């Protein structure tokens, strides 16, 4: 299905153009997160998810609001790819329940174009569980896309440790972004 919004410049429409890989995100590239009234927590609904971004490799700042955007967005934050990739939150789960060990959440950037926004990408979540804080012995690993992350969050809501880790990770990620100067 092609983009049917005439206002979107042709180079910013997907139109079957290739999807880039994680390795194509250079350290110096920027990621932009659109928000409502500058509050980084007010992520809009629609195709844009809580982990949606736009990629400077494809879109220029002046075009951020020309592609398909959810209603209400009027501001943006930006971050450097290297900062996003260095973002993490970790902690030891020793509550006597399941999945005990050293939990670590980190970011994986994925190009996920939509028809009227070729620059669209998402900051997926890698969840690793190690035996201990030395992070030598990996017990399990999963990468969550936005839908899977949401399902994971629903499942984790009854566990205080996981819930707190998730929320603290969100704050760490938000802190990587800044308003444009």
């Amino acid at each position, binding site marked *: 299905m092609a983009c049917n919004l005439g206002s979107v410049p042709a180079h910013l429409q997907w139109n079957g153009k290739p999807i880039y890989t994680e390795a194509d995100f250079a350290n110096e590239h920027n990621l932009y997160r659109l928000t409502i009234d500058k509050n980084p927590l007010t992520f809009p609904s629609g195709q844009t998810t809580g982990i949606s971004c736009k990629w400077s490799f494809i879109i220029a700042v002046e075009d951020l609001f020309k592609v398909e955007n959810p209603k209400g967005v009027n501001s943006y934050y930006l971050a450097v790819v290297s900062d996003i990739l260095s973002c993490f939150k970790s902690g030891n789960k020793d509550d006597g329940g399941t999945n005990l060990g050293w939990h670590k959440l980190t970011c994986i950037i994925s190009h996920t174009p939509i028809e009227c926004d070729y620059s669209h990408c998402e900051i997926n979540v890698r969840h690793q569980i190690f035996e201990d804080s030395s992070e030598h012995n990996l017990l399990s690993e999963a990468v969550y896309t936005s839908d899977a992350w949401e399902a994971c969050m629903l499942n984790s809501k009854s566990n*205080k440790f996981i819930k707190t880790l998730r*929320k603290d990770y969100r704050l760490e990620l938000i802190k990587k972004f800044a308003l444009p100067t």
Partner: protein
Amino acid sequence: MTNASATLNRPIVVNESPFNNLNVKERGSVFHISEYANSSALDSTLEISTGAINEAFEANLDFNKSQMGTINILQRNILDLNRIYNQLGYSNNSVLSLATKIITNSVFEGKRDLKISHTGDNEILIFREINGEFNNIIIDDYGDIEFMKIAKNMQESYNEHYYSGELGREAKVVSKL
């Protein structure tokens, strides 16, 4: 289209006087929102909010007529909250009561510039912007609360967690908002 989203398309008729449905008692007050002619999901949740507001009124003996100018603001905030609550598909009424009390007590404290929204993680968001900084109260569908301060200098941003059953948590987050 759900009942809730259908409701959003209907015009909101606000009473001409904010006091039409407000009967002040000797001790505390009674608050009532009744601008919808037809039954809907929003009407149903508004009843829950109404009960929570009345509890907050009863608990706040200092409330008097001089503060009644805040009723319009409170009414708008509560309507926004109920829209968000239904939009998120929440069904835990204790969460709605909790959010209603936080909003009501914040307005009592003179915080008239509240905004009600939701996060990208499907949580209720109550926030204020003060000099370019954001004080956020985030409530999930378990009734757990996170306070998140977004500072101008992002590195100074921080959060605090207040879980269900923690005594005095409502007052704590209201004071921080």
